């Protein structure tokens, strides 16, 4: 069972890895992905993430359970933040553990692809000029095609 958190506070990657791995020496591969707030040309002041409490946790758990069915994972952790974040701050963390690297790499990528297209989060950027909702990218939707069996 994957461990899912939707929270406003930051996370510590080392602590999260240690908590997930514990003393499980069957683990031979640990993959982490961290998404951070990117400033484009020094104009971004803050980014606010809205989400759908109640659905967000369920949707992340659903995506993780599909990954766990598809690859032999020994651990899986997803943390996604909401609220107002500054450039450089952490947004999302995915950690996957497996015996060999292929499962951990593929599952982490799969999780991020489906999270981007399905987890109910919306970003709004506060720049020096205005406030604007971030538009979804067709490339994110297209990324799902490669996981079709």
């Amino acid at each position, binding site marked *: 069972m994957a461990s899912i958190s939707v929270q406003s506070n930051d996370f510590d990657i080392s602590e999260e890895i240690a908590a997930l791995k514990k003393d499980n020496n069957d683990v031979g591969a640990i993959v982490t992905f961290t998404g951070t707030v990117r400033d484009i040309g020094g104009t971004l002041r803050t980014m606010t993430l809205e989400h759908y409490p109640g659905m967000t946790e369920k949707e992340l758990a659903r995506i993780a359970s599909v990954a766990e069915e598809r690859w032999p994972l020994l651990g899986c952790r997803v943390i996604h933040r909401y609220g107002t974040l500054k450039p450089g701050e952490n947004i999302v963390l995915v950690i996957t553990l497996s015996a060999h690297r292929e499962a951990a790499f593929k599952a982490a990528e799969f999780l991020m692809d489906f999270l981007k297209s*399905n987890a109910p989060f919306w970003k709004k950027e506060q720049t020096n000029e205005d406030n604007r909702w971030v538009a979804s990218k067709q490339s994110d939707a297209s990324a799902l095609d490669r996981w079709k069996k």
Partner: protein
Amino acid sequence: MIIKYFSWIREGVGTAEESLAKPGSVTTVSDLLDHLSGVSEQHSVALKERVFIKVAVNHVHVRHDTVIGDGDEIAIFPPVTGG
């Protein structure tokens, strides 16, 4: 039914949540969007571009042809942009 709005659709409609007794004319998500579009000018504008309107029923993503019931929680939002 409870209707929830998110992101720029929430801002456009002017409310995050409203409750509604299911009108007789409403069978599917698409019917509901048609009904809500008639509620106010703000609703009409916010819900106009159907290709940008995503819907979840009871926390599960659904298509616009999905049949809905009076006890459902219907969330209406633009394409998601997390991660």
